[in-house]
C-alpha cells in the first residue's frame, strides 16, 4: 500500500527530470532496494540519425493513466513507493524522457514493478513522440492501447 503521508510522485514535466529527487522521494529506512528505469533519447531510429524528439501528451488523461499504473503496481507487487516522471516538449539526444523509481523492502518486487510500469506506460499512456531527422520528421510508430470491447459491430468510417 502507498504511504498516505508520503504518496507516490507522478508527474508530467517540461523541464529536465530531476532523477535524484525522484529517487530520494521513494527511498526510506524500511526499504532494501530502489530500482530505477531511465528512458533516454536515442540518436538513431530505423537506421536514420535522429536529431531530436518532440513529445506531446493528452495531459489530463496521461496523468490519469500514470496514476492507474501506480495503483496497479501497488496491487500486484509488495513495493513501498513509486515515482514516475515523463517529460514533454523538445528533447535532445541523451536526455531523459521518462524516469521511474520504485522502492521495496526486497529487490524482486522493485525490479518486477519497475519493468511492469515502463512496459505498461509505453502501451497505454497517451503520449506521442515526433522524431526529427536531417531530411524530415515522422511520428514514431506506437502501440495500440487495448481497445474496449464494442457493444455492437462498429463500422469503419465511410469514405
Amino acid at each position, binding site marked *: 500500500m502507498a504511504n498516505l503521508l508520503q504518496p507516490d510522485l507522478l508527474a508530467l514535466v517540461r523541464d529536465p527530470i530531476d532523477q535524484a529527487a525522484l529517487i530520494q522521494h521513494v527511498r526510506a529506512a524500511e526499504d532494501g532496494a530502489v530500482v530505477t528505469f531511465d528512458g533516454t533519447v536515442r540518436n538513431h531510429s530505423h537506421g536514420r540519425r535522429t536529431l531530436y524528439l518532440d513529445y506531446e501528451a493528452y495531459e489530463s488523461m496521461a496523468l490519469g493513466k500514470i496514476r492507474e499504473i501506480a495503483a496497479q503496481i501497488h496491487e500486484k507487487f509488495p513495493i513501498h513507493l513509486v515515482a514516475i516522471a515523463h517529460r514533454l516538449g523538445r528533447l535532445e539526444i541523451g536526455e531523459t524522457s521518462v524516469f521511474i523509481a520504485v522502492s521495496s523492502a526486497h529487490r524482486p518486487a522493485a525490479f518486477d514493478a519497475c519493468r511492469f510500469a515502463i512496459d505498461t506506460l509505453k502501451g497505454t499512456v497517451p503520449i506521442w*513522440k515526433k522524431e526529427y531527422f536531417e531530411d524530415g520528421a515522422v511520428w514514431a510508430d506506437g502501440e495500440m492501447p487495448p481497445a474496449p470491447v464494442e457493444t455492437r459491430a462498429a463500422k469503419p*468510417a*465511410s469514405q
Partner: protein
Amino acid sequence: MALTAQAMARYTSAGYNSLVSLSSQTARIKVLFFGRLKEIVGHAEDSVEVPDGAPIEALFSHYGSSHPELALFRASLVASRNQEFAAWSTPLHSGDEVAFLPPVSGG
C-alpha cells in the same frame, strides 16, 4: 440484401454517419486531436453538437468526411471519452470530451 441496404440507408440518414440532428435533443461535445491527427485536421480542439446519444463512430465520420486522410487512419486509432479509452459505439452526451488517439509512443 436489398432490405439490408435500405435499412442501412435509413440508419445512415437517421444520423449514424451524419451529425445533422433529427432528434430534438443535442449534445455539445468537446473534441481533441493529437499527433498526426492534429496535423491533418489543422487544430487540436473543436466543439460540435451531435444528436444526444450519437456514438463516437458518428463523430469520427463527421471529421472523416471533411478530412478524407483522417478516415484512412480509422483502423489504427483508439477513441477516448472523458479521459478513458472508449468503444466506438459509446453514446455521447452533453459535456463529454472525446479524443481520437493515434498509437501511443511515450517512453
